[in-house]
């Protein structure tokens, strides 16, 4: 179970391959990769991600602990970037491994829902029209109620 926070880019494919090699005899691997999208109205020049260094890792590890209790996971990895990102760059990744596909899927979805709304990250968009902090979505908050 690994949590990595970094400002530098990473290679999602290489990460998954490495993760798979480490996850001995587990049958099912699920990954989620988040990518910086362009803004629909105004050109996104960069996405800045602020975080709370002394809390971020603790918060994500706690989410993984809960996921581990609820589902049978053989391995789990969360990578999340902070700092400045450009359009089409990878923001973050969750990878889960289990003997059962349902467990791998459920744990990955759970972690994504919690990372969205309970890990201390804040996104600021810099576009042609200026900058703005990304607002949290009610649908993201609502998604937590299903767990």
């Amino acid at each position, binding site marked *: 179970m690994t949590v990595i926070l970094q400002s530098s880019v990473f290679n999602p494919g290489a990460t998954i391959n490495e993760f798979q090699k480490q996850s001995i005899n587990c049958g099912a691997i699920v990954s989620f990769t*988040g990518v910086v999208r362009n803004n629909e109205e105004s050109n996104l020049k960069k996405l800045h991600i*602020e975080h*709370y260094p*002394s*809390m971020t890792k*603790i*918060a994500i590890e706690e989410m993984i602990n809960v996921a581990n209790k609820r589902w049978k996971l053989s391995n789990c990895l969360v990578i*999340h970037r902070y700092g400045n990102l450009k359009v089409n760059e990878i*923001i*973050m990744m969750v990878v889960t491994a289990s003997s059962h596909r349902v467990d791998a899927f459920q744990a990955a979805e759970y972690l*994504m829902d919690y*990372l*969205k*709304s*309970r*890990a*201390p*990250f*804040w*996104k*600021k968009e810099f576009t042609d029209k200026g900058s703005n*902090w*990304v*607002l*949290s979505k009610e649908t993201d*908050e609502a998604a937590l109620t299903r767990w």
Partner: protein
Amino acid sequence: MKLEMIKILYFSWIREGVGTSEEKLETKSENVKELINELKLKNEKYNSVFAKLDNIRVAVDQKLVNFETSIKNAEEVAFFPPMTGG
């Protein structure tokens, strides 16, 4: 009532609003709510940022809590908007 030295952190637009990312404060506030009321008295920036609490979240010693939570013996209190990770 003993005064306690506490570290306060601000993130995102709250950081921009109060104009600092971190400060130390000697306080006799016993919980988050009292601390917020104390901060609002500092100046108009704080008063304006903390005018409405709907969009403010708080962590005491790196743990998400609510505004009624005690800050006695706490070392670090952080204020920030709803998170937008992932």
